[in-house]
């Protein structure tokens, strides 16, 4: 348990370091992308759906699996769709003023 707690706390620090440098322009993709990552529960759902502890556990697992898969697939795809739009345009446009 203490080992897990160590992983948890250290990961929070890593997350803080990595994410505090994300520019505000990308905050929405950051949210939807990190949300997709939180769909990692899908791994737990797969195990639960494959359990033999009885029908209850299995059906809970299947429901969890559906929810987690929506989260993962939808989250990554919609983030990709958003990030696709963040392209840098050539600054010199017809008579425009580059800055």
């Amino acid at each position: 348990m203490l080992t897990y707690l160590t992983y948890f706390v250290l990961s929070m620090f890593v997350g803080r370091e990595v994410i505090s440098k994300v520019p505000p322009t990308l905050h929405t993709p950051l949210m939807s992308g990190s949300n997709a990552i939180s769909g990692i529960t899908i791994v737990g759902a797969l195990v639960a759906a494959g359990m033999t502890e009885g029908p209850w556990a299995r059906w809970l697992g299947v429901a969890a699996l559906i929810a987690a898969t929506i989260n993962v697939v939808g989250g990554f795809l919609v983030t990709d769709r958003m990030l696709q739009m963040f392209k840098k345009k050539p600054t010199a446009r017809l008579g425009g003023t580059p800055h």
Partner: protein
Amino acid sequence: MVSDLINLSYLLAAALFIVGLKRLQSPATARRGNQLAALGMLLAVVATLFLKQILSPIEMIAGLAVGGLVGLVLARQVKMTAMPELVAAFNGFGGLASALVAGAEVIGATGWSTVLTITISVVIGMVTFSGSFVAFGKLSGKISGNPISFRGQGLLMTLVAGAAIFAMAWALIGPASLSAGLAPASFGVLVLAAVALLLGILFVMPIGGADMPVVVALLNSFSGLAAAATGFVLGNTALIVSGALVGASGLILTNIMCVAMNRSLLNVLIGGFGQESDASAPALGMADGRRVTTTSPDDTAILLTYAQRVIIIPGYGLAVAQAQHQVRELADILQARGVDVKYAIHPVAGRMPGHMNVLLAEANVPYDQLFEMDDINHAFDNTDVTLVVGANDVVNPAARHDQSSPIYGMPILNADQSRAAIVLKRSMRPGYAGVQNELFFSANTRMLFGDAKDSISALIAEVKEI
């Protein structure tokens, strides 16, 4: 051996998540970063499928297929303007999944530490689930965006929280007191899930529409923490590490949003902050008799065309009117005539962190024309025209000096310092803070009433004629 392989692939997946998030630090590398994170997820799923002793493949394939299809359709169909509610909905699904996985674990659970982690996971997961869907309802207009509160809400909230603690205790004592069956724990967790569901609803209901950026970011953090809690239940490091990353990310965003509003998180959560008063008569005058000055598209077009420097301030009204393409077209025409056009983005403009940036990116506005508040605020006094499109409280000078104003102390964009400000607005309805905006009554300000999309289309037509 097999479990080593699984853990190695989980480690690799977590590393890919971190590298992927790191690439989100620049728009140029962000897309690849997201793809790396997705690859990490695929790796974790495939490793689990192949290496664990999975006994019922049909349920699993069905679950993956149904969930994948729904996710695919949602991600493809949604309009960019509906992005806040979609993000909220995905959050909700993530929270639900974590709670359900933990719930499934109750049946084989032994020992109080396992049950404790299960109860924590169920509470966070269910609150995330119901809270996110209330947020979804508010953002998509299915539930009133007004802060909904009623008398005794605080009492009810306390009761529900008390019930949650009681149910948690019940679930905990269960396995220890009854060695024969695990029924008490299961039942306790079931009650807990129901109570947590109610808690999530009560938690988001009183929060007004414009405070949604904070709530969405906070729920984002919760969805990560729920996954991490489930990781504690399963003893799965992949869940713990990834969940903690997301939890940290959401907390950082929540903090940024609160700082941008100069309000504490607690203040936002208590909610009930100003009604979006639909009922109030459109008052064209201030209490001291000052009145707003209106203008027309052709006058504004002349002003814009002969300006040297123009700053556009987008707000939630731009998203509602879906006017991002028109705004960009107007900016393009002005730039072609040698006008310097910049966009000023307030951190809490819109309904989620970065909302305006996504909308403008959809309209192909180059992101190097978008400026954050601190980078552009000094430039307003050297600006000829500021075009305020559907923004309100984030440009209210009262935040600087009027200590009685509910938004006093909130950092604002200095639109009032430019030589002229044109405010595009549907009516004189006050913003979410429920206060009149001093900017509208300033001598340099002209109001251009109407739907932002129509107004800007009219402006484009007029500018083309000059």
